[in-house]
């Protein structure tokens, strides 16, 4: 009975409101300017083929008719390869796979080559200076499928997006407008595989940061504190055959060889379709990485925000949209308002069903205070009357 009374009077709800931080609804006009393009943007991928293509055919697709220019046209395959690494074109469409370690529970094992693995991740990507888009897809022909099975990381200038299907994270898409904020860093870290493919297997290297001196190269910008340099070896047929790479850091020199393969038939682009990375230790080669490029479409003109914004994917996947600032997370409500849902590491608890509104809270407290005041007055008056009665009796007795 007491509990029913408790619930009826809503004091339980009030107690929670007093003891927990309430969610706060915020309207950030400036932020709406950022949200607006997200809500109207549509991803312009309608023209892409969803048919799996052999790598050779895909590379032929690299010609963008609108730009009337084929990457590598008029130069040798070796020069095309070098140019792609030092000054890559805008990549409008890229489909590739990554071969995962054969023992996912123990990826560090040195006794297994990645060539023994039968597990792959497939990605759809776009890239241009200052922008990228990368997401997991189910297969090489799944670019048109909005379902994202793993990670989505994207960036366009100062805007960053990140989604991960891991557990609770699968419910929402995060975005941020802080150029060096933690979400931007998260997206950058999770797009490492795109950098590795765009640098044809080099690790820890920023795209477009390779400089050549003949067939020797060095990396100007490493994602880590490393010096990276190496040598290109052409094949007898005039195609890039391999890169010998040395990574120099606090651990000393680490040596790798990256070997390239091409699709069947004539290929003049010099862009490989298969990239295999071998770690060289004590003269022994152990294959540790493998990427296959299934489709690569380049262009000269830059792409707009709509090519990198995952707004359409968020809508079709019904992801909540969370705006991440330096130390807080806000949910984007359908009204366009933002609601604070978390300060970093400290959840802001949502209002629960049946919880009192501030008006109800004030009303109940007013009634409660009035009742207390009424009882106090009654007691005071009763005591006063009793005292007066006793005084009268005493006077009468006297």
């Amino acid at each position, binding site marked *: 009975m007491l509990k029913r009374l*408790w619930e009826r009077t809503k004091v339980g709800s009030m107690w929670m409101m007093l003891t927990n931080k309430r969610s706060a609804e915020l309207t950030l006009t400036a932020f709406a300017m950022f949200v607006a393009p997200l809500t109207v943007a549509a991803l312009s991928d309608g023209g892409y083929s969803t048919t799996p293509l052999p790598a050779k055919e895909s590379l032929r697709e690299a010609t963008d008719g609108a730009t009337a220019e084929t990457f590598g046209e008029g130069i040798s395959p070796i020069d095309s390869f070098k140019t792609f690494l030092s000054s890559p074109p805008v990549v409008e469409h890229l489909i590739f796979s990554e071969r995962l370690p054969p023992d996912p529970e123990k990826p560090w094992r040195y006794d297994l080559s990645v060539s023994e693995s039968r597990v792959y991740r497939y990605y759809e990507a776009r890239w241009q200076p200052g922008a990228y888009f990368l997401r997991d897809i189910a297969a090489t022909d799944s670019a048109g499928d909005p379902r994202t099975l793993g990670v989505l990381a994207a960036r366009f200038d100062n805007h960053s997006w990140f989604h991960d299907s891991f557990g609770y994270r699968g419910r929402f898409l995060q975005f941020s407008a802080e150029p060096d904020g933690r979400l931007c860093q998260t997206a950058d870290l999770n797009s490492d595989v795109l950098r590795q493919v765009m640098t044809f297997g080099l690790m820890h290297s920023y795209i477009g940061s390779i400089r050549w001196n003949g067939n020797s190269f060095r990396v100007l910008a490493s994602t880590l504190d490393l010096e990276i340099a190496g040598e290109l070896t052409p094949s007898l047929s005039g195609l890039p055959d391999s890169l010998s790479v040395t990574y120099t850091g606090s651990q000393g020199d680490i040596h790798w060889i990256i070997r390239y393969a091409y699709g069947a038939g004539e290929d003049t682009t010099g862009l490989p379709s298969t990239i295999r990375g071998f770690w060289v230790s004590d003269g022994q080669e152990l294959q540790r990485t493998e990427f296959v490029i299934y489709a690569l479409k380049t262009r000269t003109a830059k792409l707009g925000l709509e090519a990198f914004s995952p707004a359409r994917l968020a809508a079709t996947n019904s992801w909540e949209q969370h705006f991440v600032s330096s130390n807080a997370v806000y949910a984007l409500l359908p009204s366009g308002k933002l609601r604070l849902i978390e300060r970093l590491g400290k959840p802001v608890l949502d209002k*629960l069903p049946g919880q009192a509104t501030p008006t109800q809270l004030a009303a109940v407290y007013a009634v409660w205070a009035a009742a207390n005041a009424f009882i106090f007055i009654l007691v005071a008056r009763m005591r006063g009357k009793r005292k007066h009665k006793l005084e009268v009796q005493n006077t009468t007795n006297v």
Partner: protein
Amino acid sequence: MTTKKQLKPIVCGLVAGLIGVANATCYWESSYVCEPYNTDVMSVCYSDCCATAKTTSDWYGWTLYQSDTYVPGTNTGTKSVYCSGQATYLDCHSGQRMYINGSVGSPFTKVDYSSPLCSP
């Protein structure tokens, strides 16, 4: 000889209130960032070197909160926290970036709904 002692109204009210609070206290679970991006969460050691694995994104965990409002289907009855996500480390021999899934804390245990404290 028996004596009758009358409880004062204010004492009765206090006792009733305490019983009401105790009877209405329940628990519910909520997610939050339990390990922010780029936090050290574990070590991967070989015979001659160790690498520190850092989170590749904010890890979300579940924790327990108390309230005096019962909300069907959301109450929990144990105070465990489970925090999991992906981490990355640099292999100290090959220099390769590796990815592993990890967790901090004990597996989350759902509430015992038969608990009288949390029954509707």
